[in-house]
């Protein structure tokens, strides 16, 4: 998968979970930038990304991301 493909997939997942209309993520985005991305939806997002891309994150990885870009880095290693 390319970074662009991952972002498209993430946009879909975020839109489905947050359920407040379309989402357009950029690599520098953090949870502060996206309406509805809070600690609760974050759990749903992680589980849904794992399921959709058929990967598993370690607890360290989940703790470590500072923005969307770092999340993508992590996905790229596994995909």
């Amino acid at each position, binding site marked *: 998968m390319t970074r662009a493909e991952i972002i498209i997939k993430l946009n879909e997942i975020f839109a*489905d*979970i947050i*359920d407040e209309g379309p989402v357009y993520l950029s690599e520098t985005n953090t949870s502060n930038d996206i309406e509805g991305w809070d*600690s*609760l939806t974050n*759990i*749903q997002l*992680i*589980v*849904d990304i794992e399921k959709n891309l058929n990967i*598993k*994150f*370690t*607890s360290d990885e*989940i*703790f470590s991301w500072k923005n969307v870009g770092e999340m993508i880095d992590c996905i790229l290693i596994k995909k």
Partner: protein
Amino acid sequence: MTFNELKKNLKKNFGACKPLRLAILGDSMTQFLAQAIRGAGYTHRLDITIFEADFNQIDRQIQDIRSDLYSFAPDITLIFEAGHKLLQKFNKTIVNERIKFAENQINHMQLLVDTLQKNSQTKIIYFNSAEEDDHVFGNFANKVPLSFIYQQRKLNYLLTEIATNIVDFHICDMSSIQNVVGRKAIFQPSIYLNSEMLLSLDILPVIANSVLQIISSFYGGVKKCVILDLDNTLWGGIIGDDGIDKIQIGGLGIGKAFTEFQYWIKKLQQRGIIVCVCSKNDETIAKEPFKKHPDMVLRLKDISVFIANWENKVDNIKLIQQTLNIGFDSMVFLDDNPFERNIVRQNIMDITVPELPNDPADYLDYLYELNLFETTSYSSEDTNRTEQYQKEAKRVEKQMSFTNENDFLQSLKMLAVVQPFNSFSIPRVAQLSQRTNQFNLRTVRYSEKDIKNFSESKTYHTFSFSLEDIYGDNGLICSVILRDRNVNELFIDSWFMSCRVLKRSMENFVLNTITNYAHDKGYKYLIGEYLPTVKNVLVKNLYTELGFNQDQTFWRLNVDTYQYKKCFIKTKLLEL
């Protein structure tokens, strides 16, 4: 449904749903559980307002009577202590104390439950815990009372033991859920480390559904009857074609699946579920295995209504419904044929028609998972319900031999026993209060505890009615609860009656009885009220028909000028 789908329900319009107040107390993060339960409530037509205590506040909320919990005044309180938290507690217990771990826990739980019940009217649902074996002793743990798994299993057992003795206290069986889905499906460690959440997102809908099944059963949503197809449902093969010696049933091969399925139906029947047959078959041929096949578990005496003909199943099921006089929503129809299932589903709105798997070997596991027969009560009367419905069928037969309705009623030689509620009748009265939908004037559901309180109160007057006739005892079939409105007026707080005894002049007998009582006690009026539900149209005009006069939204009957109504029931005096 997935968790995300349940969550999307939260945005829907709950307008037509029944409002309910639920408190959730947990020792881990419960926000998702709360969302899942409210979302699942929508599909059960319940608008559940949830109070969620911050986590780890179980003790404080319950023991401080000024807590938010008590001011919320929940109808139901859910207490969720996670198995993993139990393990953490166990880890911190010094070795010598571990042998008493389960006992100490249960004493504490009992204290919480007692305190909660003393200070509020809430029903309680307590989760038992999903087993988590720390494998410190390996399999040998089963021989070591101070091992965790030994203590955890003991605790789950002790919880069921106290549950048998406390009314309005129910267990949500987390342990059983985990047995089905496995530990890996229930617990995701990486998420737990990040969030204090001990339930995986995938398991939340399962748990929410389990909770909702318990809650629905509190409010009358229970199944009372199972209707069975025969060929390839109850036995393998087609009786009309294969003949009695070729159908598959018994210990060999695929017959085993049908035998085990029949044992399950038999256990339901013994529990009080009405079993009926609806089959496209010649009646004589269809009945043959029930009479003659040595491996049949079910016999004709287990079947309340047996219909085998070549008419369509929709009409036949409607006939069963009329004979039993219970709602379609309390019926389950089991048929291996997808065509029959669809026709029934399309034409009878509320009936439950499970999508039985193709392979009979899978029937039972599939049906177990659906958990269709949730209940909140079980009384000894349940066990002979089949007999009662069979007697009812005989009465219907006899009735047809009389041209005059009154002659028929006279011939039944009916006797009624009238008593205030007592410790024997309280469970049955509560059950009737929760289950009766049609002949129920106000449909206020009362628990055993409520009923017990009424029986001890000075402002309430309680009546239970049992009816017997030449065909046998119908058991306790009607209750009336009267409440003082003022010195002159008695309010009919509840009047509910089993549909088994409709059209037997029982309502006249009941009114004669309570009017007589009111008169003796010096009251001038009986005040009735009809609160409509989707199911109690039957009694919409009852008070008019019985001679009450409308008084705004109430109905009023003058006790002094009351004329006794004709009825064919005599009072049976109890021998003391």
